[in-house]
């Protein structure tokens, strides 16, 4: 079976798409979930057609948060787009910054000092902890936990945000990376704080997992729900933990080896079933690997400048050309495609938003499942509408 | 009119409401409900006669009603299952149209 056969758009139709007969149409119930719905994670809307409680059709509707981010990027200078990238995926501003910085650095051939690379890795991995912890909390909220895992996640998130705030001045909209380094050099105190957070995080994860991982209700709800086949996942451009949950070994930190990631020893957890439980577990295990990376990076961070001395901020004009830079964000591959015509503003500024592309197969995962499953499948995709709608 | 007669009139009136419903309506569910009403009317008679019998001690009327309720419950379950089966076949539950033996 080839890949196109697996997709509903292929010749044979989807693997489990059931035909909706017209004469039965009265039996179906069309429910508009969102844009005002407690579990659509923002102003996202799904038009769900139900047969009883079973989903026979699901059409995602986007754009309620569309602000033409890319047009804004084309009308601002290269530097001016940096704070806007914070607002794409507002949980992971540090990695968004990094992805944008990497694209611009590629475009301009700008080197980055070693210390800055270490700081970037540290911040990216802390962001991964932050994102995955919150995701687990939100997913459990969708499952009907009355806020408890979410509050534990937010308790830990608070500590991370405090770190971000004391480094960059802002809790969520960090605006921290610059082309050729980072804006501020982290002090020794800050690094000590990050170390404390890292050392304590494993303990928190143990408790979090004791609450959730072995819970029979959670296992019953999530195992076998929203199964995604590796073939379809690859064809649909799904990246990040969602792809790895299907068993495909693809982590840009390993394959692209950007930054200083090759210096660290870490493993890539892989799922086997591609269901919601695997997506949850892959994220939890990734957090444990992130802790390992953080410990190595914090131990090995070198002294030196944080910015490349030749780097320019104001009046930055890269030569004409184009570049596509990408990193492994917590939600998947976040990439920036930039076309320069030599002017201070990018000619074309494109965001490859992971959660937008991961939504491509939302319907495929939801067909044949129930309404309650659709909610947790959407939760397990890990979307942030700021990024989906841009 | 004695209390017993009142009870019996009540029961026969209820029976007739059920009968009219079962005869006059074409919706299968309503017909079934009419039959349920008629059964209830019968139960009222049992209780009334037990209540006003010269020797109510053996509680036979109560026994009858208990069994009757059980039978009525079974009837409701089977009847409504039939309604659903009919609906599956002909996509409505109008009694007049349920005249084919084979779906």
């Amino acid at each position, binding site marked *: 079976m080839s890949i196109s056969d697996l997709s509903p758009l292929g010749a044979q139709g989807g693997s489990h798409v059931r035909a909706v007969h017209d004469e039965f149409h009265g039996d179906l119930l069309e429910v508009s979930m969102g844009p005002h719905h407690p579990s659509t994670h923002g102003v996202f809307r799904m038009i769900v057609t139900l047969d009883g409680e079973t989903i026979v059709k699901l059409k995602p509707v986007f754009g309620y948060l569309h602000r033409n981010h890319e047009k804004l990027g084309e009308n601002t200078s290269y530097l001016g787009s940096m704070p806007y990238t914070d607002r794409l995926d507002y949980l992971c501003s540090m990695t968004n910054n990094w992805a944008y910085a990497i694209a611009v650095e590629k475009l301009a051939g700008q080197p980055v000092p070693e210390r800055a690379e270490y700081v970037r890795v540290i911040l990216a991995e802390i962001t991964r902890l932050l994102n995955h912890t919150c995701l687990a909390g939100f997913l459990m909220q969708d499952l009907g936990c009355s806020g408890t895992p979410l509050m534990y996640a937010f308790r830990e998130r608070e500590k991370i945000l405090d770190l971000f705030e004391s480094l960059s001045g802002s809790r969520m909209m960090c605006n921290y990376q610059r082309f050729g380094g980072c804006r501020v050099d982290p002090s020794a105190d800050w690094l000590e704080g990050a170390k404390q957070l890292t050392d304590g995080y494993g303990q928190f994860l143990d408790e979090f997992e004791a609450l959730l991982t072995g819970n029979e209700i959670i296992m019953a709800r999530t195992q076998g729900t929203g199964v995604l086949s590796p073939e379809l996942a690859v064809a649909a451009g799904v990246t990040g933990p969602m792809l790895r949950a299907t068993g495909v070994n693809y982590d840009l930190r390993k394959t692209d080896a950007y930054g200083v990631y090759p210096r660290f020893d870490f493993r890539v957890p892989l799922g086997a079933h591609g269901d919601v439980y695997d997506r949850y577990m892959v994220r939890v295990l990734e957090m444990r690997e992130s802790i390992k990376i953080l410990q190595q990076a914090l131990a090995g961070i070198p002294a030196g400048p944080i910015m490349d001395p030749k780097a320019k901020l104001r009046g930055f004009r890269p030569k004409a050309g184009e570049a596509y830079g990408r990193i492994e964000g917590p939600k998947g591959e976040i990439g920036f495609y930039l076309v320069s015509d030599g002017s201070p503003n990018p000619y074309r500024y494109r965001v490859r938003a992971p959660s937008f592309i991961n939504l491509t197969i939302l319907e495929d995962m939801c067909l044949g499942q129930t309404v309650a499953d659709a909610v947790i499948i959407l939760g397990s995709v890990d979307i942030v509408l700021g990024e989906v709608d841009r | 009119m004695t*209390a017993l007669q009142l009870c019996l009139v009540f029961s026969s009136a209820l029976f007739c409401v059920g009968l*009219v419903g079962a005869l006059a309506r074409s919706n299968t569910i309503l017909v079934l409900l009419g039959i349920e009403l008629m059964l209830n009317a019968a139960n009222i008679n049992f209780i009334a006669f037990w209540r006003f019998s010269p020797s109510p001690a053996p509680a036979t009327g109560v026994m009858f009603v208990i069994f009757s309720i059980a*039978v009525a419950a079974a009837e*409701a379950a089977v009847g409504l299952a039939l309604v659903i089966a009919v609906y599956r076949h002909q996509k409505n539950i109008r009694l007049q149209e349920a005249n084919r033996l084979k779906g």
Partner: protein
Amino acid sequence: MNAVLIVIALVTLGAAAVAMTLRNLIHSALLLIASWAGVAAFYLWAGAEFVAFAEILVYVGAVSMVVLFAVLLTRRSRADLTVTPDSAGRAISGFIAGGAVCGVLVGAIVATPMGVGSSPTPTVTVKQIGVQLMGTHAASLLIVGVLLTVALLGAIVIASADRTDDSEDTP
């Protein structure tokens, strides 16, 4: 004493009569539940406590649910809940038949002299019912038990019979 009975009877009859004439099936079902509750009230009035509670438990608690389920499962759209008006001829013949039966029954009841027994409300305890069920009526109890089991099995078989494809159970 009789006044209570008359009130109960009127409420029950009214609910049943309205239920049988309404076009909205859900309203009909809910009104019928009210009339069953009225019947239960009659049992209480007559001193058959156990039967009254059993009536509520079975009819209000269970049969009504099955009815509502059936109503909701056998409709294709919201509009289906309102039944199309029945043919006048059918209604008239139904009324004639019902009225005739009613007339005959009431006439017979009024004409028949009935000896009234105990005026104090008789009591029957749960214990007595249990003893009787297990004693004199043990055979009937068994038969009813078998009947119920068979009926339920039959209901399941009928309701799920022609769904041989991969579709789900009824919710």
